[in-house]
């Protein structure tokens, strides 16, 4: 632990109390916070993360009895259980369900003896009468299955878009509208998210998309989170554990005030009803506190009054703050010169996109994610009719993982069926004088006649 503080090691790479981290085993991820003497559950096991403090991010820990963690000896990051002999085929395997000599009780005994997961897997292999008769392919599958069952390790990672996007997609895809990590990667790139720009984000993906955008902005520029309903959802963003100054670049604005903002009714209109009380009496209350001339008998009433006043004051301050923040966000939106727009929500993308495009500068990219294709087809069509955006592209990505092993290389047998659909484009200045029938328009969508010709020609 102490030796981790050698030269050249960034303090950020050391796990500290209070850090947001991600636990990993195989392809399973789970976010957690480092808190002493606090149980966390991971893959149906209770763990204490206390011992991770002071270790480096990326360390793999063995889960000891009682859920305490012990850093694993280096070099065995990805353990390689030795396989000695592989049968060339499995002609001799008789499927009688009795090929494993170790019983379930035996295995439990091994576990109680404190055998590490890796050792148990080795035991299982040695006690399998058919293991060496299996093909390498079958052996691999066997080991993987057993490893998953008996290896008790957990890796502690520093959160990042890569890790959190995979985590959400694996654990709770419903919370992120089934947005697959490669689709999120496309969004960040297609929207040209980078330090110093002003980006509008509208998402109902638990705050993951917001966090991903903020990571790419690195605390430079500004992000305006548009939100539906009562308030912005940010759990996903908070799992990133961004430094404090990142949060100062983050603003939010309620969708339900968009019409007011567009209509110019936001800055000049009266404060909301619950803020309507004249501020004067409350401003006097601090002075009242200093008055000592009040008789004893009045004390209780006075204190009750004071509490009431304090509460009102508190509410007032919060309201003021809220309003100030709203106006600050409005001030960012009002010039209608945002540099990027990122939408990923359970809402129909069509009205959302058409609404929020109004806040963008010309020649800036936008990207809309939707789990379904049809709404984006509609979106595309409406945008083409309305103008103000070019370079429109409706696309989907197709992600495939590979197993790369000597003589056993092939695509992973299970793959994601779909990562959702993306509509991207670039804003342009609309000059209402010129109807949208110029050559650039024609170049973008061939007329029906040309489509016909193409179809029969090629």
């Amino acid at each position, binding site marked *: 632990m102490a030796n981790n503080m050698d030269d050249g090691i960034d303090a950020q790479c050391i796990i500290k109390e209070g850090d947001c981290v991600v636990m990993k085993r195989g392809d399973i991820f789970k976010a957690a916070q480092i808190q002493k003497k606090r149980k966390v559950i991971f893959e149906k096991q209770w763990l204490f993360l206390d011992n991770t403090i002071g270790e480096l991010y990326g360390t793999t820990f063995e889960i000891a009895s009682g859920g305490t963690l012990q850093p694993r000896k280096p070099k065995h990051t990805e353990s390689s259980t030795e396989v000695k002999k592989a049968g*060339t*085929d*499995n*002609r*001799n*395997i*008789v*499927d009688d369900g009795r090929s494993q000599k170790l019983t379930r009780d035996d295995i439990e005994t091994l576990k109680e003896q404190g055998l590490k997961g890796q050792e148990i897997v080795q035991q299982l292999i040695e006690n399998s009468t058919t293991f060496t008769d299996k*093909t390498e*392919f079958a052996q691999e599958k066997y080991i993987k299955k057993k490893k998953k069952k008996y290896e008790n390790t957990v890796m502690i990672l520093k959160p990042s878009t890569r890790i959190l996007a995979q985590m959400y997609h694996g654990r709770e*895809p419903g919370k992120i509208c*089934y947005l697959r990590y490669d689709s999120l990667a496309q969004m960040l790139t297609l929207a040209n998210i980078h330090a110093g720009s002003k980006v509008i984000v509208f998402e109902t993906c638990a705050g993951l998309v917001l966090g991903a955008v903020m990571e790419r902005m690195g605390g430079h520029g500004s992000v305006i989170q548009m939100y*539906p*309903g009562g308030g912005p959802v940010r759990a996903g963003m908070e799992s990133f554990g961004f430094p404090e100054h990142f949060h100062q670049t983050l603003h939010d604005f309620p*969708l*339900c*005030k*968009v*019409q*007011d903002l*567009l*209509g110019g*009714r936001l800055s000049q209109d009266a404060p909301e009803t619950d803020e309507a009380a004249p501020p004067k009496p409350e401003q006097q209350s601090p002075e009242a506190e200093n008055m000592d001339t009040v008789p004893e008998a009045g004390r209780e009433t006075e204190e009750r009054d004071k509490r009431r006043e304090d509460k009102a004051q508190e509410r007032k301050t919060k309201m003021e703050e809220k309003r100030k923040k709203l106006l600050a966000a409005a001030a960012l939106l009002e010039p209608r010169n945002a540099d990027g727009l990122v939408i990923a929500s*359970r*809402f*129909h993308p*069509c*009205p*959302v996109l*058409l*609404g929020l495009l*109004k806040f963008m500068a010309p020649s800036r990219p936008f990207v809309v994610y939707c*789990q*379904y*294709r*049809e*709404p984006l087809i*509609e979106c595309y069509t*409406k945008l083409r009719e309305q103008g103000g955006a070019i370079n429109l592209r409706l696309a989907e990505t197709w992600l*495939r*993982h590979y197993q790369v092993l*000597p*003589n*056993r*290389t*092939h*695509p*992973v*047998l*299970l*793959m*994601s*069926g*779909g990562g959702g659909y993306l509509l991207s484009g670039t804003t342009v200045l609309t000059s209402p004088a010129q109807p949208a029938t110029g050559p650039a328009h024609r170049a973008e969508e061939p007329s029906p006649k040309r489509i016909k010709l193409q179809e029969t020609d090629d």
Partner: protein
Amino acid sequence: MSFVEYAEFIQEGDVAIIFMGHDSMFPVKVQQGAQTQTRYGVIRHSTDLIGRRFGSKVTCSKGGWVYVLHPTPELWTLNLPHRTQILYTTDIANITMMLELKPGSVVCESGTGSGSLSHAILRTIAPSGHLYTVEFHQQRAEKAIEEFREHKVDHLVTVLNQDVCKDGFGVMGVADAVFLDIPSPWEAIGHAKSAIKKQGGRLCSFSPCIEQVQRTCAALAEQGFGEICTLEVLLRVYDVRSVSLALPDFGPEDTLQTGLHVPGEEGTPAAPGANATVTCRTAMPPREMAGHTGYLTFATKSLV
């Protein structure tokens, strides 16, 4: 009923598929007096199955109902007892077409495995073709013979229990097509070549790993096969659904139309307010699908 000929009515001894849903069906052997338990209750073969039309709706003892279907190689593939990894219909369809199988074709296959492909081959080459299928695993070979008999296709097939890499297909110069699904197909290319008719024929090798494909392609080229072509086919099944999409509430609209409220796809007017939604029909890919079964390598053996 047989797997190569449709029948109208269910008879004693038939195999029928009890269909309760896409992911919920199973085969039964129809026998006078037998009963089959389902989660909707009992099916009594004598009264509920025998003599009824394939495709009938059968009401089970608990009042739920199921459909009874005529077996096809495709339904069989979804329902057969797995003795090995099996080939699925998407690959089978391509193998059948790319091997140019048709009534009368003579085919050599190894290994027989669980017989998934074998049934599809037999369906296609009947009534005059023949399948020589080689399985090195004795138990499996015996089970296959039994199944072919039950499915009334045994006159079209010869099952051999031997090692195709050492002993070949047991026939020479008779095959229009050879299919290999074995761990080291490159060791069987020579035997495949001799099994194919003198005037030539087609070959297919199915392998999950690219290294197997590489060695097989090299062996094919060495043995003078032409038109060597490796491909892969994946199936994406869509789930047809109605989905709801919320409409955003941008707040009360100005007297100056800001034009924000866009009606939904199906003409539903976008009512202002927090809970407006539009519905649309869509086809969704499944969360997870088979991302790889195997590579299919095809080749032609020609005289020239």
